């Protein structure tokens, strides 16, 4: 196993200590409650935005905690949702009196654990709002579409809205609007290796490609021969735009996301092809983000996320953000 670990059992804790040590001005790691919180939380009078999910998808969500984005993140075990105790502790830690919005990816475990937390918080007279992210176009007839790359966009845009003093209903409305206009589709070129397993989850020949992967190491919906980057870009664009249905000339924010092991050069190569494919289909790719942001440990692969944006969303996207993994304008 090609991994830097001490012990699989302490993997998540060990990585979170390192993350906090690298960014002391932005975040703190509350080891007892197993949460990552903005160091100046709670921010009085600001709507707090939080999320959580299984570890292994870094920098999602822990790398997105900081001014302009999340107030807290609840990291679960590898590919396992956080538990109600973490979610409740985070909610209490960031509540600045203006309300809390929980961003929940549509995975059964996350929906159930956030649901249990919400039930218990309600008993304490603590009311939280939640916004579901389900931008996956590969899982129409299953447990529901998963929350994938669109989660990053929801967190950035809702976080920016909260920073601009939107009230909790308005922040939630931004999250819902983003989710309604964002879609993702991913392809995998390999499996990945969870630390406590020590070997890949499944075998995959080097000349094949999984269509419709998620972000927790599950295989795709269909396995096909690997094709050229141009063909893969066309396939990604077709899958996403068929479902999103953007109008001709629509302005699109393009996220070309790596799954963890695919190098940046390949992602940029893919992005070039994707931008061409979008323009040739009459769309206007007006913002781009290329890199490994919503990953599945050491999986090879990439995913395309498209968000149809308007003036307000573009403004919120360009607004300052200062987190471990995203920083601009401040």
């Amino acid at each position, binding site marked *: 196993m090609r991994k830097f670990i001490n012990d699989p059992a302490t993997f998540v804790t060990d990585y979170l200590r390192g993350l906090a040590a690298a960014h002391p001005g932005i975040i703190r790691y509350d080891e007892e409650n197993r949460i990552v919180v903005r160091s100046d939380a709670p921010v009085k009078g600001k709507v707090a935005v939080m999320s959580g999910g299984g570890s292994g998808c870094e920098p999602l969500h822990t790398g997105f905690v900081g001014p302009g984005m999340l107030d807290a993140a609840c990291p679960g075990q590898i590919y396992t949702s956080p538990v109600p105790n973490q979610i409740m502790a985070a909610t209490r830690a960031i509540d600045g009196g203006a309300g809390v919005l929980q961003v929940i990816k549509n995975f059964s*475990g996350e929906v159930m654990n956030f649901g*249990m937390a919400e039930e218990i918080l309600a008993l304490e007279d603590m009311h939280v709002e939640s916004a579901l992210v389900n931008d996956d176009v590969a899982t129409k007839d299953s447990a529901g579409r998963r929350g994938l790359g669109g989660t990053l966009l929801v967190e950035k845009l809702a976080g920016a809205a909260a920073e601009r003093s939107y009230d909790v209903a308005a922040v939630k409305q931004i999250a819902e609007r983003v989710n309604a206009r964002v879609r993702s589709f991913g392809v995998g070129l390999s499996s990945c290796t969870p630390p406590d397993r020590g070997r890949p989850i499944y075998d995959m020949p080097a000349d094949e490609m999984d269509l419709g992967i998620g972000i927790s190491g599950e295989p795709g919906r269909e396995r096909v021969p690997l094709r050229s980057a141009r063909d893969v870009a066309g396939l990604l664009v077709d899958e996403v735009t068929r479902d999103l249905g953007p109008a001709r000339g629509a302005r699109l924010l393009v996220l070309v996301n790596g799954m963890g092991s695919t190098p940046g050069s390949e992602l940029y190569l893919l992005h070039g092809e994707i931008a061409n494919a979008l323009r040739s289909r009459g769309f206007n790719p007006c913002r781009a983000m290329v890199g490994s942001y919503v990953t599945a440990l050491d999986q090879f692969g990439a995913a395309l996320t498209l968000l149809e944006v308007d003036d307000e969303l573009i403004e919120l996207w360009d607004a300052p953000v200062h987190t471990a993994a995203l920083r601009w304008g401040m």
Partner: protein
Amino acid sequence: MQQQTGNATQAIDAVALSAWVREFARLIAENRDHLNELDSANGDADHGSNLDRGMAAVLDTLDGEERALPAALLKDVGVTLVDEVGGSSGALYGTIFLRLSGAVGGAETVDDALLAQAFRAAADGVAYRGSVKTGDKTMYDALAPAVDALDNALRAGRSRRCAWEDAARAAEAGRDGTIQMQARKGKSSYVGEKSAGSQDPGATSLALLIRAAASKLD
């Protein structure tokens, strides 16, 4: 001690329930790799590891303090599982024990009828929390038939030992029935038709829970 005394079975107390939970922990540890392997067919291969970690924490909890009341024991098991296992499995196994706890109330011992009722409440809890029904290829496909079988056997006047044996067999048949199902819930549903042909790991571990009851709640 092992003298046969007809149907004069003892009421179930916290000690007996604790023996059941410990037996489940032993079976999970024994089947950890098998459960992971089943989970690798369509999932992320961690069902066995997660449950094993959770049950180890449960054993620590049980070792730490004696509990006189069944409800207290069941609640602590549930809370520990929710907190330690995480994911869908933690929420659903936690829900099972929390609903069992709620259903047995303040009783010092639980008779067969009340325990069957409590298991019914647990199954309903799983259906609610997981939004699942029969045929979705989940743990519910083992739990629901086990609860029915337990109920039916007790109503028919069968002994506790026979009733739990019926329940365990029904859970195992339900588990085997998941092989041909296409998943409609959970991570295995993401692979679509490919999910048919493999046994559901949640139904497999659930069958162990009932098997543990059959061997310890007699």
